[in-house]
């Protein structure tokens, strides 16, 4: 017997899963069993609360799934992996937005939060809409491929009436043209570069070292204190990410006396240093 609240794809899927030739990514969660597509479907129809879906388990299962494909096909399925990342990131955003304290709308910030939530939801729906439309377009293309257009060479009598070609290019001209056309092209940038805005690149690793030094020499510090000298939002973000990593690595602890109260951090690691996790950076 499934646990109460357990949703099974077989009974609840309003739409059948897409007929995939390859292995379908199946999930086996505490409250849901079935293809990933069906899970998305339930969430988008709000029949399953995103806050009740264990995204970490979804990710673990996806990684296992993609490894199985890699093992059997001999290569990574990048299409599927990048697609999963997009959807997972949206789900994570959505879940984060849902978990934020809700209640009476009191100020502009609350309204902004609600709007952000709807936008995330909209983004997920839009992504799925285009996937569905792409499936329909593929069907139409397949259907049309059975009709062959008449496209025959010009009948000889008309070809003979074409105006005589006037050839003006010399051999040198022609070679120069070939050189130009065959030269490897610089990839065209897809958007206007923001490089000229001089946004400094901030290393999370550097910020980790800085925070470690600060916390080792102070018994505890608040987030406000730790970012007082930041100067640029990217530095604040990098320090926040550094703190998250240090919490994960269990080298610092944190406490918060009241909801929305001040966050205080304390060094609890050994004396050997963190090993500097996180080579990433924030632009």
């Amino acid at each position, binding site marked *: 017997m499934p646990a109460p609240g357990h949703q099974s794809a077989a009974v609840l899927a309003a739409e059948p899963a897409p007929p995939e030739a390859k292995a379908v990514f199946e999930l086996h969660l505490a409250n849901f069993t079935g293809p990933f597509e069906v899970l998305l479907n339930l969430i988008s129809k709000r029949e399953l609360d995103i806050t009740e879906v264990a995204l970490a388990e979804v990710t673990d299962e996806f990684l296992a799934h993609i490894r199985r494909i890699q093992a059997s096909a001999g290569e990574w399925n990048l299409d599927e992996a990048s697609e999963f990342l997009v959807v997972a990131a*949206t789900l994570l955003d959505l879940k984060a937005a849902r978990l934020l304290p809700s209640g009476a709308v009191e100020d502009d910030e609350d309204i902004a939060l609600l709007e952000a939530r709807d936008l995330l939801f909209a*983004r997920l*729906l839009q992504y799925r809409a*285009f996937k569905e439309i792409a499936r329909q377009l593929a069907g139409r293309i397949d259907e*049309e491929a059975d009709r062959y*257009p*008449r496209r025959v060479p010009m009948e000889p009598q008309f070809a003979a009436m074409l105006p005589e070609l006037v050839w003006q290019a010399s051999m040198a001209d022609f070679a120069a043209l070939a050189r130009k056309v065959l030269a490897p092209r610089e990839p065209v940038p*897809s*958007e*206007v570069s923001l490089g000229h805005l001089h946004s400094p690149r901030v290393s999370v690793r550097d910020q980790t070292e800085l925070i470690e030094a600060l916390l080792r020499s102070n018994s505890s510090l608040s987030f406000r204190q730790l970012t007082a000298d930041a100067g640029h939002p990217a530095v604040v973000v990098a320090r926040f990410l550094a703190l998250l990593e240090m919490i994960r690595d269990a080298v610092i602890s944190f406490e918060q006396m009241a909801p929305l109260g001040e966050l205080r951090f304390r060094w609890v690691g050994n004396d050997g240093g963190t090993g500097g996790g996180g080579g990433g950076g924030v632009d």
Partner: protein
Amino acid sequence: MEYSPADQPGGLKGALEAVLMVVEKPVTEGELALALGIPPGQVAEMLVELQREYDGYTGGGPQSVDARQPRGFEVRSLAGGWRIYSRNWFAPVVAAFVLEGQTSRLSQAALETLAVIAYRQPVSRARVSAIRGVNVDSVVRTLTQRGLVAEVETDPETGAILYGTTPSFLERLGLGSVAELPRLAPHLPGLENLGDFDDTTY
């Protein structure tokens, strides 16, 4: 006496068929009218007559005694113009003779990118990327090489190249125009008016 296609055996309808035999892409009623020296409305009428004849109805009337078989080809209006196609039910036979071979299938990524461009055109690669959540540069390049999308204009503000679908895209989908694309709204419940949310979230 001066030459007039109307005086030839088969008359103007025959002349219309003759021109359809040599077109390389869908040809508009206006172009056909110009070639035949008659008003576009008359061309449109004759095209519908030809369609009916090829489908197995006689030109003579609806109650003809000998039930006619449909021809092995049809004349269709696609991408804003008319063109002759073989019947889809003979595809297995015809395929053996068409040297070009149907072009290879589009990948899932290409299809989804094509869908976004079709519904959001004219659209920049950056915006398509925002909606798809991945970089689409190489996919757009492939679609351009296949003649399904093309650079149509430049954004006056950002200078970004904007892409749109081509007549060849419409032909591949069997559509008369972009307006005939299946509606997106049913797949976006309650979000019909939220067309631009993708710009604000990235």
